[in-house]
């Protein structure tokens, strides 16, 4: 049974569903056509993965992924973080968090969803791919910033943190 739909009529004096579609399409054309930041989404298949029955964990060879999907998003990567293990004795320099702005319509067209814990690959150079894990899937888009004039949300902000090759290095 289809879920009940509620018509959105706010700011209807100045803005309509057609305007929303137009704004969204213009934005997508700019982001996907001009900017063209491309990323690869590796979605963990929780059903097929071989998980530990106490911790729910899997080793690198035990995790199963759905087919990787390329998608476009606006990418912002923070400065690298210099940290250390063992109280400053073992240096660790790694990329900062990656924040993605992705159109909800784009995800729907690709028929994918980005979930907490999924992995995302981003090609920094021709021969270097960095991998990140989703730490905030941005599923909640209730704030004004994610809407066009308060009409309806049109994008999600996804925050990812760097993962070491020990945890994930592509499939």
């Amino acid at each position, binding site marked *: 049974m289809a879920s009940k739909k509620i018509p959105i009529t706010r700011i209807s004096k100045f803005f309509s569903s057609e305007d929303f579609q137009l704004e969204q399409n213009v934005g997508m054309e700019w982001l996907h056509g001009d900017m063209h930041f491309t990323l690869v989404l590796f979605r963990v298949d929780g059903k097929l993965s071989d998980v530990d029955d106490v911790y729910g*964990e*899997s080793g690198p060879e035990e995790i199963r992924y759905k087919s990787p999907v390329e998608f476009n998003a606006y990418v912002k990567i923070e400065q690298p973080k210099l940290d250390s293990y063992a109280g400053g004795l073992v240096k660790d320099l790694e990329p900062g968090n990656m924040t993605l702005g992705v159109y909800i319509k784009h995800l729907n067209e690709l028929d994918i969803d980005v979930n907490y814990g999924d992995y995302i690959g981003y090609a920094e150079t021709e021969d270097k791919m960095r991998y990140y894990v989703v730490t905030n899937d941005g599923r*909640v888009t209730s704030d004004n910033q994610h809407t066009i004039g308060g009409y309806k949300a049109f994008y999600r902000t996804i925050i990812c943190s760097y993962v070491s090759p020990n945890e994930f290095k592509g499939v």
Partner: protein
Amino acid sequence: MALPKQVKKNLNITPNPVQGHYPSGYNGITTPNRRRELANLITDDGTYLPKSVLHADMDRGMLDFVEDKLKTVSNGKKVNVIDRILTLQRWAELSQTWKFSTSDKNVDLPFIVVVRNPEVQYGTNPALQYTIPDRKQFHYAKVPTWDGNRKGYDIYTIPQPVPVDIIYDVKIVCNRMRELNNFNRVVLQNFTSRQAYTFIKGHYIPIVMNSIGDESKIDTEERRYYQQNYQFQLQGFLLDEEEFEVKPAISRELVMFGFDEKERQKEGKGSPKNPDKVNTKLTFGVGVNELVLNYDYKVNISALRIKNVDSYSFYINNLPHTINEVLMINPGDVLVIEVVKNTSGVATLTLQEKLIY
């Protein structure tokens, strides 16, 4: 006046023994039934050896304890328990909570979660602490074997288990005081005597309640919810089957010697041969001029030395014999020796006897 029938005239003030089949107490020889039953639980569905009890087994035991013993009902519905120890792997969290999550994929309240403190300390259970050094192996079982030809035994030995203490925070997150009360009641009823037990691979492992804390979020402008933390200490032990040893006992012993025939021992270097000659010194005291000797074996005799003897005579079975060099005597013969002394003092005559085979 007679006492009423209800009044007992004889009271047994000696309590009954705990184990009915040991009326005088445990005799230290046969295994009590209950102990045998517990041992069967440990080796159930497996080998003669106990199964490993490691960290994951104790975590599973704690989860089972929370699921079974701390089961809480709210409004006729069981409060959800996240049936995993949550770890750093992010997607695993979602895969364990999707059954009771909202459309935003947040966990629906109320729920109970078990959080294990990552560090595991050396145990405080006094029964296992620092009692035996150096991972010494102890006899656990003697198991009969049969290889088709020979019967034997295998000796199974295991070291003393390593005691560990694991701290768990069991948290209930809910919106209503009634749910808190229900959970609190269940916990306190289980821990009235401070500790409760979980059952892990045939072993009863004690769990001690440390503390109860409140971490509720009650802000004026934020979402409110209750969160209470019950801290438990599981006093377990590590029993690692990698440390078990199975050794064959002696089934039959065959001792073999090998000789190198090339290197024979040279003659003369061995132990001396048994002598076939014996010198017997006969003493004739003052006033004694005759001695009688009975023989049970065949010998040749001869006079070797004389002292204070002028002349001597030999009589075998009363027949006189003159001895020139050698005189043969048969078994059962009686030899009489007469001497004529030079003086009246002590005289000696030494006989040499050579055994004849």
